């Protein structure tokens, strides 16, 4: 049940422009098992999207660059794969659902054409009729009538468009879906519908998912495990139970939940925490959170905290020093796994 699907090791990504260098992701480690849903939670700018784009190798051409680390999908090292190999992976092995359904679809192609395109690219074995059938099938699966495939994106509402985007992502039944805030742009009732749909489909197809969000309520509903990201690093990771019910938390996570880290009454939005994220262009030594941390200690300003709390729960904070594996990095191989 806990077969490893994706492994990210020491990933560092920068954006280099003429004026500055942004250190977007710093030494990130993450493992995702087959069929598992991992929530990636963090404020805007934490590096969530960058992480997902790195997995797709779709970082912006001239500026974005992976400087360190590797990402492996099964046997394939994505950071070193050829562009041709990557094209075969994208949309087929890994699909991505983007944040804004309003702009994610090409306005001048029918939704049917856009879904069929993935099949044309990856299912060379299918006849045109089979492809058409598959398009109908997949549309029905995401809850849209098949005969709407001849319509254009502007004829659909936001929620329906996101269903189309999901249909595109699922068309080739990939092993992994990267969902980058798939519901953020939608209003609340639609959010719930889409979420429900994704949960259902995921279970039905047994697809692994990296679910990026800053909505804790969403996380609780859909994820098996949760990783909290701050300034390009993962500062806490554990099973959904660990995060929502565990007693020990990273001070940032505590801030996120506000005063009541109660799964039942969880606040829907991340609580604003006083202060700002550190300037991503000037890497900070020690604990990245120390300028904002109410419990900051001397050591925090110089040494990077790395702590494991227990088998499935890891927190990167000096408060928990002395626990098991003091020097180890946050446990990536944690097996909180299936519910």
């Amino acid at each position, binding site marked *: 049940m806990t077969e490893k699907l994706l492994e990210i090791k020491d990933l560092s990504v920068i954006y280099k422009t003429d004026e500055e260098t942004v250190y977007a992701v710093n030494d990130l480690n993450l493992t995702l098992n087959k069929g598992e849903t991992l929530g990636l939670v963090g404020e805007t700018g934490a590096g969530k999207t960058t992480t997902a784009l790195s997995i*797709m190798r*779709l970082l912006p051409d*001239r500026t974005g660059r992976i400087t360190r680390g590797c990402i492996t999908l099964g046997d394939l090292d994505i950071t070193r794969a050829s562009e041709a190999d*990557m*094209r*075969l*992976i*994208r*949309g*087929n092995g890994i*699909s*991505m659902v*983007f944040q*804004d359904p309003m*702009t*994610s*679809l*090409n*306005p*001048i*192609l*029918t939704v049917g054409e856009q879904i069929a*395109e*993935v099949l044309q*690219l*990856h299912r060379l074995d299918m006849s045109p009729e089979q492809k058409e059938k598959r398009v109908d099938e997949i549309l029905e699966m995401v809850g849209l009538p098949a005969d709407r495939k001849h319509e*254009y994106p*502007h*004829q659909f509402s936001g929620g329906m468009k996101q269903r189309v*985007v999901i249909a*595109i992502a699922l068309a080739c039944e990939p092993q992994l879906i990267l969902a980058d805030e798939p519901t953020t742009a939608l209003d609340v009732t639609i959010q719930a519908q889409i979420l429900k749909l994704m949960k259902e489909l995921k279970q039905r197809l047994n697809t692994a998912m990296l679910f990026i969000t800053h909505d804790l309520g969403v996380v609780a509903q859909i994820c098996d495990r949760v990783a909290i990201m701050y300034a390009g690093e993962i500062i806490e990771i554990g099973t959904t139970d660990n995060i929502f019910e565990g007693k020990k938390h990273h001070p940032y996570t505590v801030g996120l939940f506000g005063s009541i880290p109660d799964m039942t009454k969880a606040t829907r939005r991340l609580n604003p925490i006083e202060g700002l994220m550190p300037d991503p262009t000037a890497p900070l030594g020690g604990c990245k959170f120390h300028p904002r941390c109410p419990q900051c200690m001397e050591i925090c300003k110089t040494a990077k905290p790395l702590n494991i709390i227990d088998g499935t729960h890891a927190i990167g904070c000096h408060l928990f020093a002395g626990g098991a594996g003091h020097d180890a990095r946050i446990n990536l191989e944690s097996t909180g796994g299936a519910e």
Partner: protein
Amino acid sequence: MLRYIAKRILMMIPVILGISLIVFSIIELSPGDPVSLMLGDGASAQAVAELREQMGLNDNFFVRYARYIGHAVTGDFGISYRNKVQVVNEIASRFPTTLTLTFWGVAISVLIGIPVGVISAIRQYTFIDAASLFSALILTSMPAFWLGLLLILLFSLKLGLLPATGVATMQHFLMPSVTLAAASMATIIRMTRSTMLEVIRQDYIRTAKAKGASAFRIVYKHALRNALLPVVTVIGLNFGTQLGGAIVIESVFAMPGIGTLMVAAVRTKDTPIVMAAVLFVALLASITNLIVDVLYAYIDPRLKSQFVKK
């Protein structure tokens, strides 16, 4: 859609009428007497007066305008003052040259301008990009007559490859069309480049990449057609300018088109010819704009559905 086209055609009528009144006023109210120009130096006052009367030029301005429009709607555009030929025949005989020239001008500017603009955009900040922007700058700032003469000097005189004057064969149209294309090509290159740059930043391009589409497919299938929408409008609007540019080019390459006809007619105050030529060009420009708009709606489903709903 048909209703829309019909509406647009109806809307052309007041536009054309307005243009006709403006042009008529400009020619008629500007100084200079066509009859004196026709008869030349040394004609007696009596001879001038007689011919004026004969041509009905002594009537009041509005009477003459009304008479003109009255005849024009029946398809009678009168007889050239200067050449005594039926204006309609004259326009008809000149039209193919101008149309061929303009067509190839537009075609060349599009066939070169769009690919160069695309390459320039997808290779932004490279040498190719800089080179194409630089040549676009040179093309826009080079006056057509000058470029035309340079081409003639090079290809006709020095290399002897192409004829300098006339319209007998397609070869005759090559240099004039290239000259005509030059100016609008620059606009098309820049326009394509900038819309293309904007389009390739769009989310749906990222979606296409995430599907595993190749760079070529992304440009051809997803980016280009979206980027072309505004370019098509520009090409349509440019059409009028192209016809204007044709005037200079026809003169440089000694081509019998509407442009040279119009210039000669303005000089001699040949009102029937000027009127008909201007109206004709205006009509052509209106029709082109209509075609472009319909084409636009055809390429852009967002607009198309607007018409369908109505």
